């Protein structure tokens, strides 16, 4: 992490990320992951695949999320991924990726564009069927999708059957969190 004197706030506006438990559901604000979008430049598809493999960055297909040792990624669109890495070691994730991919891809920092909530529950579909049109009951671990929750454009990542990541617009973190808590209370 850069050596500076500015203290971060979490998307919900606290010094430390918030974790809330509602019955069997845990909703945890996650701030320790850096994000950047990676978009292949025209004609560099093979280069990006090769460079990603060399850097141990998994690049999943449509609707997918893939986890590597350090890097993870989910699919945003054709030749377009969101790359994840630990914030503590990769705060300037865009600079790292630019070094790896040079002119083969366009890289944009996205870390603070999103509020991330990891939701853990034994029966996640019972809660999320009240939030999203995504067919969570029919989804396997490693699925990732764009969806709308309470008017907000979000990404969902199925980490495992009991853990789901919700990425929503950071400025609406409180509205999104409220929607999650309300659905959890309603479903359980």
């Amino acid at each position: 992490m850069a050596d500076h004197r500015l203290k971060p706030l979490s998307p919900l506006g606290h010094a430390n990320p918030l974790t809330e438990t509602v019955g069997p559901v845990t909703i945890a604000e996650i701030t320790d992951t850096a994000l950047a979008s990676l978009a292949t430049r025209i004609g560099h598809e093979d280069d990006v695949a090769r460079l990603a493999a060399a850097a141990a960055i998994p690049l999943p297909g449509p609707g997918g999320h893939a986890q590597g040792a350090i890097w993870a990624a989910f699919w945003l669109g054709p030749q377009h991924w969101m790359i994840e890495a630990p914030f503590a070691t990769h705060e300037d994730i865009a600079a790292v990726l630019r070094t790896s991919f040079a002119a083969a891809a366009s890289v944009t920092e996205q870390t603070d564009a999103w509020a991330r909530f990891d939701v853990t529950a034994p029966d996640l579909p019972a809660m999320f069927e009240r939030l999203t049109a995504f067919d969570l009951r029919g989804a396997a671990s490693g699925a990732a999708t764009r969806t709308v929750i309470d008017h907000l454009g979000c990404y969902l990542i199925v980490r495992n059957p009991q853990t789901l990541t919700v990425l929503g617009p950071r400025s609406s973190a409180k509205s999104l969190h409220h929607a999650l808590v309300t659905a959890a209370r309603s479903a359980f």
Partner: protein
Amino acid sequence: MTRIAGGQIDRSRTWAFTFDGLPYTGHPGDTLASALLANGVRLMGRSFKYHRPRGVIAAGSEEPNALVELRTGARREPNTRATVAELYDGLQAASQNRWPSLRFDAMAINDRLSPFFAAGFYYKTFMWPASFWEKVYEPIIRRAAGLGSLSGQDDPDSYDKGFLHCDLLVIGAGPAGLAAALTAGRAGARVILADEDFRMGGRLNAETHGVGGIAGADWAAQAVAELASLPSVRLMARTTVMGAMDHGIYAAVERVSDHLAEPAPHTPRQILWRIYSARAILATGAIERPIAFENNDRPGIMLAGALRAYANRWGVAAGDHVVVFTNNDDGLRTATDLSAKGLEVSVIDARNGDEVTGSAGSLGLKSITVRRANGRSEVLRVNALGVSGGWNPNLNIASNHRGRPVWNDAIAAFVPAPDSVSGLTCAGAVAGVMSTHAALATGAARAVAALAELGRSVTPMDVPEAEDAPVKITPKWYVQSGKGRAWIDPQNDVTVKDIRLAHQENFVSVEHLKRYTTLGMATDQGKTGNVLGLAIMAELTGKTIPETGTTMYRPPATPVALGALAGRSRGPEFKPVRHTPSHVWAAEQGAVFVEVGYWLRTQYLPRAGETTWRQSVDREVLQTRRSVGICDVTTLGKIDIQGTDAGAFLDRVYANTFSTLAIGRVRYGLMLREDGIVMDDGTTARMGADDYVMTTTTANAVPVFRHLEYCRQVLWPDLDVQLISTTEAWAQYSVAGPNARKLLQKLVDQDISDAAFPYMACGAITVCGGLRARLFRISFSGELAYEIAVPTRYGDAMIRALVEAGQEFDAVVYGTEALGVMRVEKGHVAGNELNGQSTALNMGLGKMVSVKKDAIGRVLSQREGLTAAGGLRLVGVRPVDPARSLTAGAHFLAMGAPATAAHDDGWLTSVVFSPHLGHSIALGYLKNGTARMGERLRAVNLLASTEVEVEIVSPHFIDPEGERLRG
């Protein structure tokens, strides 16, 4: 008491409830209707128009008569059908549309005046004088005619919305639906079985005949238990599928808590489900229809199938002297079942020429008049009459996509046309197959066929032995008798006479018939009466019933609470809120916030002693211009544009040129729509060779991004361009004023002197000892100004750092009001000028539309009508008398010209009080404005009744040479 043995109620528990304040008891498993009948209560309501005494007719959701107000206080719900209101301990219900009481309703005078209230009486009676309609006639009519009343209070309950997915949606859990669900569920298909009833089984619960050697209700219970054990099957009782939407999507309302006194904490009252199905089977059964005869609406006269449903399912005898009037064999079942329960029953079979011609009993049935085939009439003392005119398939949902039902002579009813809704098939009675065995068989077969279409081979369930009697019916719609009224649509008080009147007055099309008589327009949508009305009209016109046709069937199939449609989107949860990175800090300072789309922005920050917003805004403006001000501008849209063709891409989407912009520089850009009108404006910075950051207005952040994606993906997919929004990723602050550089230099780690970081420079920097940041030297206020961006998580710390660093300069944080004042003082266009009908030329920015290249909107911006000399041009405006205030929207008129559109010279777009100048100033669009500097005109606002003499001046009130911002 009229309880008899048997039924599917839990007699081990007794619940108390009230109706019109009187105490009664019932049992779990009762509906309000069955419980009232069990307590001997037949009179449950008054009719809509004539206030006729009415009792329950049906035993299901088709009930037109027994409408009550359920619950009290804020939870009071009017027009609730007693037949589907599940009883709970403590239930409170009241009759409606009566005064002062249900038994004595003064408004029943309407019944005596019925000759004046025939079909179309609104149109005929209240024609004159016209002014009386709203003030006199309508209030009287509304008071006299109507249903229940609203509580007038906010609904205290919550409603959810949700989304479900399945291979097969089965609508209705009668024999056909259960067979379909079992067939598909046993094969492991994802099945949703939805039924509006709280007990699944459909008519099996109301009949005595067996299935597979056991009672039908028991077979249904076993089937439901098996389905509940299958992991891929979801059973949804108390869930009404209310309509077929597009692409296999069905809307359904689940009544989660309506069977409770009030919902459990945090639990919704109802959920509106959007069900995505690969295939669907409609198994909604059939609805019995009556035969109309004179005075056929008295409490005690019911559908024959309902009469035996109450006896068989709820253990209720609606009367002990019962007559069944039928034209088909199914009516005979009622007689058989009730006789078996020891009731005295006789049958009037219309097929033998016998008819019921009338009834008597002021508040409930006491006797009927029967005309025998031999012409002899007799009066029978009865207290319950079951009427059966046949069964209509309950086909509403199958016709939601405009599929017109087809007539089936064998059952004398309409059945759904094949393929009326893509992906939907019908099974059981709704498909016109009326026996239990046929329902089971078609249910299983439809499930096999549906899954085969999905590529799954499934074995149908073994169809158990069950009743398989053919339909034997001789159509009979109404009984010809005297001059009395025979009801067709009891809820809206439509009679056979009304149909005749409509025919007489040439309203013969079914759509006209419906609207002229209001047939089928009540809350029950004419489920029991519509086909009668059509049949009578067919007879009058000499056409067949299928030639006469049906009206449209639209969702919802049964009434839906508005709360369910609203879901959580009400009150403060109506829409999400977007908070700026400085929000926490601003709230601590007591900022006043303003909604800008979803954003909450700081409007101004009052300080102690300031009593009006103007004092705060004036201070913020003056302090900024005198020293330095800070403003959160994060809400402006930010779009990252990268790729080797990014410059060429920008040249095509912007009217001016960007490919020549030097790295590390910013340029103001104007974006046009295809029709040449200005879409948006903003600055775009070139951060690297293939790396630009575009800024949009707050309002157009999403539309511009969408436009760019369209251009990239559709118009020019060959360009190497990648886009992504970064609006939320960066907290961005404007720092403006003569001391802006001094303030920022305390925080920025690099040299930002004018030489190192000149006007319109941009670049990556670090702040506060190493945090990555971006700096843009751009100005909206006209002052020496910068915009500094840091990762959003540091936005709160950054505003605090800026304020702290600014203390020595008496820095101020300003809001959107001061921002607006300063941009008008500087003559910058914003939303009021970017109004979707103005060109660059109108805005005085015509030279920005490059003619050296092509760009979206360039050609059409040169249209003759848009480029004519003398067109609207942006001007500045000041009042001749500085004490006068201007109002936005006022129109320019020449001195002495009449205030008419023909003399309109333009209008004031934006008006502010300039604390710098000490008077109102404005921007406006004025015809030939550039050539009219110094001219005096009138600014006339006819809405506000104001007229102010104004002088036309340059739109640049502050620093027209731009020396400050280059300082």
